[in-house]
């Protein structure tokens, strides 16, 4: 052991290790995709493959840059983002309200839950023909489909969360004579929040899934349109570029939900694997 290392206190060493870990851990996750991309790039450059059906990273980047420069990418991203936002908003509001009411009132639950569970068993894509007949081929039917996809996980999450609130904690609220509204605000809302955030994230994920299905059913713009366009014109680079855009947008919106909810969930007594500390 060198003298310098011997002089460092355990705390200092741990701090150094933590600082390195902050950067090295995400790097570890990047190693696989980046490695594969580099290997594929080399294979195409060396001429072992023409990269026509599986474009190398450089060609995808080129396509991406072209789409971005021409403003095409932004136009498609905005169209898709708008649909997801509106559909997700509607689905979240409906799922939260119905879930909260059904969780709180046994009567309402007995009336609406069986029907909703039945509807949930229908694969949401199956609604597309009906929605097109009812709502036309433009935005309304697309937004409705996304809202339906988002609604179910959130409804189920909220009902489940409300029903699993600890009776003992509710009793504390009763012992302090909380009124109905105060009980909701001070006991039930904080108690369901962790499960609610999980269901929001699940709903958001489904929202991104359904926006593609919605855009496949006939759109003139949007990332889903870009996918179809790439397929019909035989441009795999454009398809991959659109997929990458989806991945980035999905990750960003999910991170927004996580970051926005984090300050309210610091109290959680979660399992934290030893190596994460």
């Amino acid at each position, binding site marked *: 052991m060198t003298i310098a290392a011997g002089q460092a206190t355990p705390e200092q060493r741990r701090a150094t290790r933590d600082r390195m870990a902050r950067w090295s851990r995400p790097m570890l996750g990047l190693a696989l995709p980046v490695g594969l991309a580099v290997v594929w790039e080399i294979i195409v450059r060396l001429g072992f493959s023409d990269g026509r059906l599986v474009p190398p990273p450089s060609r995808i980047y080129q396509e991406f840059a072209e789409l971005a420069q021409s403003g095409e990418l932004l136009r498609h991203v905005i169209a898709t983002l708008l649909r997801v936002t509106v559909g997700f908003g509607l689905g979240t509001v409906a799922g939260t309200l119905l879930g909260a009411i059904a969780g709180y009132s046994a009567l309402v639950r007995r009336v609406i839950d069986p029907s909703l569970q039945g509807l949930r068993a229908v694969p949401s894509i199956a609604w597309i023909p009906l929605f097109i007949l009812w709502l036309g081929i433009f935005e309304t039917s697309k937004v409705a489909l996304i809202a339906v996809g988002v609604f179910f996980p959130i409804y189920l999450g909220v009902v489940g969360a409300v029903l699993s609130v600890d009776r003992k904690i509710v009793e504390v609220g009763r*012992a302090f004579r909380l009124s109905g509204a105060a009980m909701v605000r001070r006991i039930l809302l904080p*108690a369901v929040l962790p499960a609610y955030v999980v269901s929001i994230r699940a709903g958001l994920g489904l929202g991104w899934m359904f926006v593609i299905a919605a855009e496949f059913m006939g759109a003139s713009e949007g990332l889903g349109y870009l996918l179809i366009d790439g397929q019909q014109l035989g441009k795999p680079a454009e398809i991959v570029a659109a997929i990458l855009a989806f991945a980035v947008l999905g990750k960003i919106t999910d991170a927004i939900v996580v970051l926005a909810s984090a300050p309210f969930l610091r*109290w959680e007594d979660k399992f934290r694997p030893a190596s994460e500390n």
Partner: protein
Amino acid sequence: MLSLERVGKTYPNGVHALDAITLGVVPGEIVVVIGGSGCGKSTLLRAISGLDTPTQGSVLLDGTKITTPHEQIGIIFQEPRLLPWLTVAGNVGFGIEDRPKHERAERVAHALDRVGLSEKANMWPRELSGGQAQRVAIARALVPRPQVLLLDEPFSALDAFTRVDLQDHLLNLWAEFKPTLIMVTHDVEEAIALADRIVVMRPHPGRIADEIEIDLPRPRDRQSAAFDFAKRRVLTALDRSLDRAVGVEHAEQKAAQGAAMWW
């Protein structure tokens, strides 16, 4: 003055848990209810708290019938039941949310100081030990300054050292405002360390078997002969409550063996 008049409870499934309990408790008195499992101790406490309502008779606090939780009656459960999303200070102040902010902060700080947890004020409940969490629960129940404080086996989940420590904390806190304490336990030593009066219950259905006055001066020396004598009296009464045909000698033997934990 808290009075129970022929309080009985029969659950919807037909279980007759309590039968005609009549008890008067004067302000500031410490009553410990002791008895075997299933003799209705907790049912009795829940009836007094207003969390459950008795099916016969009534609970009266200063002449008012208790049917729902009352602001003058606080309760401490077997588990701390802290709200995990509130800090320690937030939990302690839970019952006085309606008071002005500075008064709330002052009373919370004072209560935390009294239970020796001032430096934990901003911690989350998950960061506390079992004993600390129960101290926070005691502070939470006492901060609204209830006239009556009910305790449902509050220290039964703790180890022996922590338990004695918390009993001292409780007496210390009680001395400040002298609320009426009604505590349920199955620990004979705990009962004698705390009680002015011990109510021994018998099961099927739950009713009062015996009442034993403990007039030892406080603080009580757990090693003293008088403490031991009281212990023997309580153990004998408990045996009698279960219709066990045993003499005092037997109970003496049990006490001598250190059978202070009576289940």
